[in-house]
């Protein structure tokens, strides 16, 4: 627990800095509302159309694939720290685990889910 004291101090400073900056901004800058200020900022270009549009489902697919392989990578971590003591047995188990997900990877590849046509 005491090892995490620096993180706690860090977070406290971050929160204090945010509150300080926002308070100073409000106190010194004041409020001058203009219609242009509430427009979405698009690198200086006038915004076109609505911000609320449906996005293609490919984004979801990429996010889902990322999440699944992310979880796979996390499962490899506890194996990796005991890989030496478990030896061949652990290696075979891990290869089975990766093999099953490898089938999924091949399926994603064959169904061209990894492409952005």
């Amino acid at each position: 627990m005491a090892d995490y004291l620096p993180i706690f101090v860090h977070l406290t400073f971050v929160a204090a800095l945010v509150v300080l900056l926002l308070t100073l901004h409000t106190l010194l800058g004041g409020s001058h509302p203009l219609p242009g200020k509430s427009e979405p900022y698009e690198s200086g270009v006038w915004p076109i159309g609505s911000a609320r549009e449906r996005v293609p489902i490919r984004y979801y697919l990429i996010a889902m694939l990322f999440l699944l392989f992310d979880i796979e990578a996390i499962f490899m971590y506890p194996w990796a720290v005991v890989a030496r003591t478990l030896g061949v047995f652990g290696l075979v188990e891990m290869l089975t685990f990766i093999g099953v997900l490898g089938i999924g990877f091949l399926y994603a590849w064959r169904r061209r889910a990894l492409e952005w046509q």
Partner: protein
Amino acid sequence: MGELAVFIILSAVILIPGVIVVTSGNIVRSALSLVPTFLGVTGFYIMLQAEFVAGIQVLIYAGAITVLILFVIMLTEGGSGVEVRQMNEQVPLGATAALWLAFLMLLVFLRTPWSLSPGRPPAYSAPAIGSAFLTNYALIFEVTSLVLLVALIGAIVIARREE
């Protein structure tokens, strides 16, 4: 004493955004309010010396799951509409159910003999989790890969249906 203070601070970090999650009319704001809630739970895991689970909590929940929820909102027509009523129409019925649930949970909490384990937790939890996964719970570990495979194939089948 310090532990109690940390517990109270973390509880506030979890509960205040948690209330925003269930009451906000803006669904994107609800989704983003999940982030501090997940990070507060991470703090609880660290207090329980479950550091590996804490790492997973940050990576998977605060990172990936929130992004996935935001993607789902972006994919849904009208999903990111600002004025969404989250409140149930049947307030008395819902309040009664919530009170009963709270009562039951308090009953369980007060009646359970919470015993303290004499053993000490290991200094590093990841090796213990690793050897447990690959020896005693090897079958569960392998079935996990099947669950992930099903999720992967399901996502591809649903997303690629139009072709």
